[in-house]
């Protein structure tokens, strides 16, 4: 709370003298008198809010200028210069005042006006609600302006679910005009050649749209077209004095418009292809190991045959075993080759499906996912070190 200025304390004394004037003994039991006495008592105790309430009640019961003068002093003590001035203006309207009190009141009004500024607010938004320090500002007084204590005040604009707030500092004795923004802007970005841009179904110039076009606060529809390709219409919410950027990439659609979903079958098929490739590799590795086993057995058999120490039955048995192993290895190789071919075909088919199923913007835009994947890959290599990195969002 701000300290009561010396001047306000000094001015309070003569006014109190005039307030005591209506008090007579016959009035002691009257309700207004009771309330007025209670007001004075609370005021002397520093309980200005309750004192003000009691005085207002007493003035309502008995519109005596002395009571309203007392109210003016309480408002001054509460640092409500606007209300204090209003009370004094009511006081001056009384025809019961002598010249001295009138001059005193006028002097006090001049003093209070050094603590008051005037704020007028305008906006182009129809139906907008304007609040100053949480008090609704009626349209009728916006232009004329309202008196407010000098200092900082918060002005809030609400329209079409859009909210705009601003703090303003009023200087004492001055009139301040505030024009609240009624619009934001929408910027449309798309790198597809010969693209056409639309806001609320009206085509707008691409170059101007890329720099941002002023739009009334609220919801707007934006869309892109390039040849036969069209992008889904995006709903964007524009707040006053805010710039919204909408791009023609599905994933980059502005402000919460759901990204187009692609059919997942391509991913499944690519996964199956990779699994087949893994199986092919595993089979090839197994065949390689079996080949090493066969080679060892074959070399041993060749060596034993050359020494002529191997009975034919043993020769035949080992040769048959080796032949069976060889057949098994050859079958394994065929399986590996078949799996490899199948893996390649399935993977290629899956990739083709991914292209086919991907949303239209992805096909035409520079942000198509293959390019994203490709641009996300980086390779660093040295003689004894290498690093393959893919960076991207998922």
């Amino acid at each position, binding site marked *: 709370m701000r300290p009561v200025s010396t001047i306000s304390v000094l001015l309070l004394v003569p006014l109190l003298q005039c307030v005591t004037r209506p008090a007579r003994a016959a009035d002691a039991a009257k309700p207004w008198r009771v309330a007025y006495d209670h007001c004075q008592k609370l005021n002397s105790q520093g309980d200005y809010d309750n004192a003000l309430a009691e005085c207002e009640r007493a003035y309502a019961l008995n519109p005596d200028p002395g009571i309203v003068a007392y109210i003016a002093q309480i408002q001054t003590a509460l640092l409500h210069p606007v209300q204090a001035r209003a009370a004094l203006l009511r006081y001056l309207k009384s025809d019961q005042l002598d010249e001295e009190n009138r001059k005193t009141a006028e002097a006090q009004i001049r003093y209070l006006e050094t603590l008051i500024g005037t704020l007028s607010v305008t906006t182009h938004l129809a139906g907008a609600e304007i609040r100053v320090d949480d008090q609704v500002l009626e349209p009728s007084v916006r232009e004329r302006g309202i008196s407010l204590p000098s200092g900082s005040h918060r002005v809030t604009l609400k329209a079409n679910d859009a909210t705009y707030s601003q703090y303003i500092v009023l200087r004492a004795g001055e009139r301040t005009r505030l024009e609240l923004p009624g619009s934001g802007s929408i910027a449309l970005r798309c790198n597809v050649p010969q693209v056409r841009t639309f806001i609320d179904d009206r085509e707008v110039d691409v170059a101007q749209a890329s720099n941002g076009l002023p739009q009334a606060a609220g919801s707007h529809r934006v869309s892109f077209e390039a040849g036969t390709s069209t992008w889904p219409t995006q709903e964007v919410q524009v707040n006053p004095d805010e710039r919204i950027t909408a791009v023609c990439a599905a994933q980059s659609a502005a402000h919460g418009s759901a990204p187009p979903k692609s059919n997942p079958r391509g991913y499944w098929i690519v996964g199956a292809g990779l699994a087949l490739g893994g199986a092919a590799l595993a089979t090839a590795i197994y065949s390689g190991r079996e080949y090493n086993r066969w080679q060892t057995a074959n070399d041993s058999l060749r060596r034993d045959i050359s020494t002529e*120490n191997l009975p034919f039955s043993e*020769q035949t048995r080992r*040769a048959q075993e080796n032949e069976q192993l060889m057949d098994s290895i050859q079958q394994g190789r065929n399986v590996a080759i078949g799996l490899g071919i199948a893996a390649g075909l399935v993977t290629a088919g899956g990739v083709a499906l991914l292209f086919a199923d991907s949303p239209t913007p992805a096909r035409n835009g520079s942000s198509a996912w293959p390019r994203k994947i490709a641009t996300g890959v980086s390779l660093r290599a040295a003689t004894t*070190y290498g690093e393959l*990195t893919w960076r991207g969002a998922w």
Partner: protein
Amino acid sequence: MVTLAWRYVRPRRLACAVVLFGFSACSPFEPAQTTRFKLLHAGSDSELGISNAHWLAYDDQHSRTAACTNAVAGDHDPSDCSTWFHPSFDWPASKCVPDADELKQGEMTDPGPNGSICVQGVLNPSLPCRTGSAQCLASSDDLNPSMDASNMWGAGFGLAFSASGKEPWDAIRHRVRGVAFDLSGVDEALLRDKILILRAELPIVLTANTAVPANHPLMRTDGSLIGVGGDLYRYDCTTKAQSQSHFEKNPPNRPLQLGDTLADADADAGTTAAAEIVTSELHPLGSPFWQLGPEASWGPSPMHVGHNEFEWSNVLPPKNSSYDFDPTQILGVHFQVAHADPSRTVPLHFAFCIQNLAFLLDE
């Protein structure tokens, strides 16, 4: 962000690993070339052009000339000669030559595929010659100078390639390059120390005019014997009397030939001899056998327990014989047990098995 990093991996090693993996996974197959062979068996084999093949066992007393007990040759007691226990002959050897039916007791059953043909027998110690030096070739061993080396030759058995045993079989035409067999049932040490002399023998057809050594008595098919001096010795099995006469040759001055072993040669003045088959079994030094070479010797065949193979180039005629081995004239494959040490005074009992007797085929 997905990062795959590698450190301390040299590119050369990585490339090498990839190449090795690819090599092991894709390298070609070069299977060991197994030996081409054809198992031999009794009976007929149209592929080899053999018919009526049969197994036959014989020894120096149970054979066509029965040299060990022959009255004009060895004249030894049958108990002093070699013999088989398995197969066995149930007829007692005598001073006369046996007939064909008696010799047929030496026929053996074919063991069948993967079967073994097993034999048991005994070689009795060598004895000095009981007949004169014209009828018996004495050992040249300095320690045992008079041991009978021409009539106590041991025992044998084998697969004859024809019913008569005298029809030549052409190995070259049938693209056969040698013989293989598996030996078992005998102590390797007996072979290594040459206590048991085993030979793989291939009797062949020879020509009638094949020369024979002049210092060897020559047994004839009827059991008579042409002595070293040119006399013909006969034993009459009915009267049990020996006779001696001059062996007539035509022309008289020619040297003895292998055809002179044919008993009917003198009766028909050589005409029958020309029609009769003359084999190396009639040669006084015997048939060709598997030898280490390159020079012929009287040692054993270089066989060992287990698998054995030899090619025709390792089949040589007996030492000092005057003929060559001809693989187009083969009569069969035989295995013979020969005397090793003339000074041996105790009988040598032996046993062994032959399995998977086969021809080696050209590659």
